């Protein structure tokens, strides 16, 4: 039987359309499954893909000197990185970038062909290089804003400042000690990126709030400059191994300058030896030699056992204690305490120490801060070495009184001298006077801290007078005398202990420790020159440097000369005569 074809067509069309309706229905159900049932799972997968976590970091704080001049600053720099998975043609890209980045094509190609998500190509490149690389229009490159640490004063105060790593972490010096304050904070933010790695959600955020805090030092760049130049001259003139100098404000303990020679440039810290980085004035102990007589004399007077004019027999240059013999450089007979200091008689010093006894000497030296850390805000401070008096042998008591068998740091010594200068109070030395936040607000202010009273003001006054005589005619520190200012000071010439534990012949540490002006000390200064070869007497080697530093700094600080005009007149008269 023949069916009506048109009926059959209609029937079969209906079958086909039912099939399609079923297909459309399947699709609608599948869409619902993906978008509702599996929706959150799928969208989290998607988000993981285009939400990238970006760490936003502020700028590391600036280190400024006491006047606000920058000593360490962070500047914006751009680093170039790549996502190798997005680099289509590692060979071509490497070939085009190599000459501009000044990296060999092979090295670059290897980086670009790696399987990682992220490789640094070059850190901290100059703006023209950034432009050149951007101009190549290579997909998959990242230009990362970074900060680079710059020390604009180059070598100035290099060892003191220390340095920070390329990742902005302080590794040495103030940079290390104040890491917590200087450190920029960072926070992670989610940024959406397209498949080409480009962000698409708005302008970069303000990061000022993330900046580290500024650290203001007590160091004055001008005084630092004066000090470094004078030190450099002393070290080079006397062909010494190295040298250091400390300038401190006696009333507060604030360190005004801390110089080391040879210099160290923190901008290129990698080019220097580890030894050159060290802030030796703080980290390295040394035997002070005769400068120690200041403090044994102070102990003698303050204890009431000895007066400035008490006289001691100085054995004409050689004094035997047990198996040891103490020598003086010049033979002396009877000397007063004042003269013992002025002429730096070791035997006299031993006699004084024998008079007051080991216990008293030890008590005073400990009170002056020897044998313990000053607590200065620098890493790696040494406490020096002052052993307990009960373990002292007969020679030790005397030797320690003139600076042998005891070791100190330059900073300890300066702080102790400052205590004499300010009337007997030991001040804690410090380097940082204020911490300032990114908005310019002072968040932390350092005020001077008295550690303890060491000697009475009268004793301090007496010692000052004695020390003034050192720089007058016939004293060992004549070369340190200033024009227009009175100076108190003491020379030091210590033999160095060789590797065998005995005093090495011909190796000395020459130093000068003092303060000026005598009437109202504004500066306590220590100059230490290590292993001078031309001459080794502290007065000759370190005295002139002390003089230059004191003279120029007092001028710079506008300290009125007390008797400048007379001295000047005398000098002119002499010239006329000559």
């Amino acid at each position, binding site marked *: 039987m023949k069916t009506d074809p048109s009926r059959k067509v*209609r029937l*079969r*069309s209906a079958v086909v359309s039912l099939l399609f*309706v079923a297909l459309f229905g399947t699709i609608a159900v599948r869409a619902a499954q993906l978008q509702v049932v599996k929706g959150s799972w799928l969208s989290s*997968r998607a988000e993981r893909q285009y939400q990238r976590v970006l760490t936003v970091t502020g700028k590391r704080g600036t280190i400024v000197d006491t006047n606000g001049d920058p000593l360490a600053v962070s500047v914006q720099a751009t680093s170039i990185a790549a996502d190798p998975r997005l680099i289509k043609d590692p060979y071509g890209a490497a070939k085009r970038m190599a000459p501009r980045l000044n990296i060999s094509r092979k090295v670059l190609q290897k980086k670009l062909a790696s399987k990682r998500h992220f490789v640094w190509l070059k850190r901290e490149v100059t703006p023209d290089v950034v432009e050149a690389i951007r101009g190549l229009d290579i997909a998959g490159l990242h230009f990362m804003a970074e900060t680079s640490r710059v020390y604009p004063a180059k070598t100035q105060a290099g060892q003191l400042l220390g340095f920070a790593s390329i990742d902005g972490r302080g590794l040495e010096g103030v940079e290390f000690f104040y890491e917590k304050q200087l450190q920029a904070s960072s926070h992670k933010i989610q940024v959406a990126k*397209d498949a080409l790695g480009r962000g698409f959600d708005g302008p970069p955020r303000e990061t000022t709030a993330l900046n580290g805090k500024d650290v203001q030092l007590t160091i004055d760049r001008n005084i630092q400059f004066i000090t470094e130049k004078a030190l450099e001259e002393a070290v080079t003139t006397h062909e010494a191994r190295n040298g250091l100098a400390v300038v401190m404000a006696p009333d507060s303990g604030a360190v005004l300058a801390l110089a080391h020679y040879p210099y160290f440039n923190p901008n290129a810290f990698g080019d220097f030896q580890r030894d050159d980085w060290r802030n030796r004035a703080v980290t390295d102990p040394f035997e002070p030699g005769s400068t120690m007589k200041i403090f044994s004399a102070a102990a003698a007077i303050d204890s009431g056992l000895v007066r400035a004019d008490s006289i001691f027999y100085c054995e004409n240059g050689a004094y035997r204690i047990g198996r040891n013999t103490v020598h003086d450089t010049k033979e002396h007979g009877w000397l007063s305490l004042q003269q013992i200091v002025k002429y730096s008689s070791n035997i006299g010093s031993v006699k004084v120490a024998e008079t007051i006894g080991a216990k008293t000497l030890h008590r005073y030296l400990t009170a002056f801060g020897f044998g313990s850390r000053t607590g200065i805000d620098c890493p790696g401070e040494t406490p020096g070495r002052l052993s307990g008096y009960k373990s002292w042998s007969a020679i030790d008591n005397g030797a320690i009184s003139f600076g042998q068998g005891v070791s100190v740091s330059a900073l300890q010594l300066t702080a102790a001298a400052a205590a004499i200068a300010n009337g007997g109070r030991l001040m804690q030395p410090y380097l940082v006077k204020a911490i300032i936040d990114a908005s310019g607000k002072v968040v932390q202010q350092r005020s001077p801290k008295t550690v303890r009273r060491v000697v009475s003001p009268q004793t301090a006054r007496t010692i000052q007078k004695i020390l003034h005589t050192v720089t007058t005619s016939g004293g060992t520190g004549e070369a340190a005398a200033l024009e227009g200012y009175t100076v108190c000071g003491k020379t030091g010439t210590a033999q160095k202990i060789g590797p065998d534990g005995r005093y090495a012949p011909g190796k000395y540490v020459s130093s000068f420790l003092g303060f000026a002006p005598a009437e109202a000390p504004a500066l306590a200064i220590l100059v230490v020159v290590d292993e001078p070869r031309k001459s080794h007497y502290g007065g000759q080697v370190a005295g002139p440097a002390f003089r230059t530093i004191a003279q120029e700094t007092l001028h710079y600080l506008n300290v009125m000369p007390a008797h400048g005009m007379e001295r000047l007149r005398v000098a002119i008269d002499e010239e006329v005569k000559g």
Partner: protein
Amino acid sequence: MNAVADAPRATRISGLTYDTKLLFCVLFLVGVGIVMVFSSSSALALKHYDTSYYFLKRQTLFSLLGICALVICSHLPYRLYRLLAYPILLGAIGALLMVQFSSLGVTAGGARRWLDLGFLRFQPSELARMALVIYLAYSLSKKQANIRRLSVGFLPHVVVLGIFTALLLAQPDFGSVVIFTTITWILMFVGGVPLRWLLGFLLPLLPLGYYYMMSAPYRVRRLLSFLDPWQYPADAGYQTIHSLMAFGSGGVVGTGIGKGVQKLFYLPESHTDFIFSVIGEELGLVGVWIIIALYTVLFWRGVRIARGCDDLFGALLAMGITTAIGLQVVINMGVTLGLLPTKGLTLPFLSYGGTSLLLNMGAIGILMNIGMARHRGGGDRVHRG
């Protein structure tokens, strides 16, 4: 069913009646297409053409041309195509040959599918599909008397399909082969070819198809990645994964137009093959269901026109046009939803692409003309046999 009783509520415009439901669906889809093409292509356009509007402008232009094509075709009596069936068929085969053997052929993405006509990259397979539909409608209606005979009702059509298949596999365009084959089978089924031929021939085709799938490594990978796209996130499963992520991110109401992320170079071909994923992400399940509903209505109107047509050629032509569009919709959506392995097929009316838009809208015009002819009471009944 009575032709008068279920006459569409058609509107009479300048002496002709338009199927307004069909017209509404098509225009709505084209409109959504323009918006979504812009949304999904602006970033790509900016990267390659320095203007976000490159694809938007072109899609808008082709939409306007497409409306013209629709209007013109709806005014041309569809019986014209019965006369033109062979010339169009030969033209389509010629165009496919030109893709392979002339300098106008353009290779892109590893396939040679386009003819460069200067202002337009013409995709002959789109024309060939239309040609196949017209030919089948013509041939099946003409041979109605002996339709049950293998040599008359079945073999000639399979031979023509074979020619197209050979030419399409040369490109290669496996997706189109699937569509062409399915259309041929559906039209032969509707046209009255006995089921035993249709099913009987399908069985030996299965191992053939299997062999073909396994012969090219990229097709094997595609198949494997289809079965578990998350195992192949970097290569073959990449598109599927990102398409699924787009749907998942969209949720019920979507991220909002223009706010999707997958189109930002994560999802390749987001303005062509994967525009439905962008719709899923930006318009959500609501948008997806509305689009599916629009296609369903469009399909329903097409089938209705076919079933209401007294002329067998017209009925088969309408059915062919409708199923060709419906099939492409189903496959494209199935691919984007991870139900089918990826094929290079666009979504009619929505995806970016000039040839496809012009031909599909032209086809809707033809469909409308068939509907109008019936409504005007024209068309000869097919009671010749």
